[in-house]
């Protein structure tokens, strides 16, 4: 049966959904909301649904307004997300502000979603500040952020905060298996590793990183250091990331082709192509980056599991359930485990600072071996 409202498709956030639906029913909209919570739990999806509901009480998903919001052609709806490698650019915000200063086309509300708002460059955030402070009438901003530390306090203080929590394990599992058709075994693992974040779980399940874990555990459990294996591990992780970007690149090439078939020969064609390619390049860099972060999360998950076992906690708290046998055979001291986790954090920072990922991983695995 098809659901009658887009709200029905949001899973695991009943309280938040009720709050937002109440706001619509009682017509008590404020001008800015800040949706915050962990990455990949459905904030952006909720934001899009809320946006639809602002102009269509039922968020029916089928009327002109709802469809316009879904495919971004609604005249009074604007959506921006990072177009820089990791950032929302100033030009994106100024472009948005320019649009906000024109009158609306319909008599409803103008809705603006800023996805990954924590990735706004400070200059961009400051540019936004002024409209956020004195917004034109009937404008609703929805900022979506998963890292509150990086949202300027001047921005967050001007928004009503709506908190999202991590999803329950069962909910994530249900979404992965039923909505995304991922096999049960894979789903179970991905759920445990993702910590209740659907987006993360989805990516982990399809990343090919899961296969690398066995080698990793072997390396960690092994009593003798093996430089060759460390080098291999590092290259495996990098290869997994490259494979993912290669796949994206193919889709992007198709997009460029389609876009060009539309504008070929027109005045701005070359500019459009260039802009599109720059955006694609950044997108690839972004995905690659995320892939490395996920790999590190996986590495950390193994050490975390070992710690759990060390503390004689219940086995059900282990993330890498399929490898519990190997994990149990490990003979590593607690102090070693915690220092290993610290090393992983350090590698995470290095990669954020754009250190060559292959070198960063090799370095990490060497130090990890040395620790044990």
């Amino acid at each position, binding site marked *: 049966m098809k659901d009658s409202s887009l709200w029905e498709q949001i899973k695991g956030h009943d309280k938040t959904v009720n709050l937002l639906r109440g706001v619509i029913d009682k017509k008590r909209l404020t001008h800015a909301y800040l949706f915050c919570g962990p990455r990949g739990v459905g904030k952006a999806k909720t934001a899009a649904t809320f946006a639809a509901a602002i102009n269509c009480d039922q968020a029916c998903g089928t009327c002109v307004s709802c469809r316009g919001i879904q*495919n*971004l*052609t609604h005249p009074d709806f604007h959506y921006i997300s990072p177009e820089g490698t990791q950032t929302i650019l100033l030009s994106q915000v100024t472009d948005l502000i320019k649009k906000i200063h024109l*009158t*609306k086309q319909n008599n409803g509300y103008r809705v603006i979603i800023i996805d990954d708002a924590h990735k706004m460059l400070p200059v961009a955030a400051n540019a936004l500040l002024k409209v956020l402070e004195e917004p034109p009438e009937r404008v609703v901003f929805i900022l979506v952020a998963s890292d509150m530390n990086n949202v300027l306090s001047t921005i967050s203080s001007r928004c009503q905060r709506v908190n999202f929590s991590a999803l329950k394990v069962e909910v994530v599992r249900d979404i992965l298996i039923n909505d995304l058709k991922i096999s049960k075994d894979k789903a179970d693992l991905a759920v445990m590793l993702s910590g209740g974040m659907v987006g993360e779980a989805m990516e982990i399940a399809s990343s090919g990183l899961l296969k690398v874990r066995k080698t990793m555990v072997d390396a960690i459990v092994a009593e003798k250091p093996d430089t060759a294996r460390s080098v291999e591990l590092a290259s495996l992780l990098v290869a997994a990331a490259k494979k993912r970007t290669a796949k994206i690149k193919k889709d992007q090439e198709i997009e460029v082709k*389609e876009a060009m078939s*539309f*504008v070929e*020969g027109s005045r701005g064609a070359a500019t459009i192509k260039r802009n599109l390619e720059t955006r694609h390049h950044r997108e690839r860099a972004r995905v690659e980056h995320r892939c490395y972060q996920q790999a590190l999360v996986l590495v950390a998950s193994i050490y975390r599991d070992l710690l759990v076992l060390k503390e004689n906690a219940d086995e059900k708290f282990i993330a890498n359930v399929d490898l519990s046998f190997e994990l149990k055979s490990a003979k590593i001291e607690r102090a070693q485990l915690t220092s290993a986790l610290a090393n992983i954090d350090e590698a995470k920072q290095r990669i954020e600072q754009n250190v060559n990922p292959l070198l960063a991983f090799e370095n990490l695995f060497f130090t990890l071996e040395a620790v044990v």
Partner: protein
Amino acid sequence: MLITLDQGSFLSALQAAQRASSTQSTLPILSGIKIQAEKDGDLEIYGTDLEISVKSKCPARVEKPGSTVLPGRLLVDIVKHMPPGAIEIKTEEKANNIEIKSEKSSFKIKGMQPEDFPAFPDVEAKQKITVDVRQLTDMLKGTAKAISKDETRPVLTGALLQEEDKSLLMVATDSYRLAVKTVPMRTKKTENTSLLIPQRAIEEIQKLLINESGKIDITSDENLMAIKTANIELISRLIEGQFPKYKQLVPKETTTSAEVNKDELIAAVKRVALMAQKNMSIKVSTDSSSINIVATTQGVGEASERVKAKITGEKMGEIAFNAQFLIDGLQAISEEKALFEFTGPVNPGLIKSIKKKDYLYLLMPIRIS
């Protein structure tokens, strides 16, 4: 859909709609053009970038009604290169494939879902301004260049169209200059409509009016404005906010006034400006019977020219202006002679039309160090 129509009229209707469609957007559908054929009606053609929207009509024989969205640029190119005569457009029932045929050639292109195309906006005609096309064109021409390109002050990025007693005004400023064009209106209005029209729409309206004559209506509600000729309707959003109170900027009295032949002055400024290589700054002064223009660029050279003028009031020392801005103002004068007025070197200069008193151009001086 199955329709037959004439190449020439189809092309001009398409070009009108295509101007509104977007070349910058990353949304492919916005670079498309929607065509819609109703039973017993004209073919309707739509283009939009969500800021402005254009609907144009073209007579057609509709055998089977229907609608589709086609790549804008490509469609225009195809129709442009077809020989004059009849064109047939046919869509296949299932796939959104469109066939465009003339007598000899045949094209098959892929279309997009018409349901995904943004709906054409509705303008409730709450206010209506009726104006002569030629007068409107003059207003647009006289003020368009003064529109600001600086997006940090959005209210200046358009022109203000305003009814006032028995006249209609158009005003634009970029804070370096201000242009006001006035046309008389026969009827006195009770409500004074005031529209802040974005620069993009100003440009498009100018193009729209090129081949028009007679009277034209501009209708508007709180959000949108619409202008409609026999075959083309253009709808634009407006700029939100309050246009600055410009009247208090215009000096009531000036100390020096020069009546000068407009074309002579333009030609002289253009010549002298060749030597103003740094910031287009030229110096203007008056003596008893002429305006003197001087431009100097250090290390390059200098130029000067005298232009005969009828001077009244005090003798004017040196005042510097941006040459291009000065030319822009002078060119908007439709009469042979223009009035060029000053009050000292740090106050704005004024350019006015003499006979009709329908144009005013205020120009800020450049500080001479």
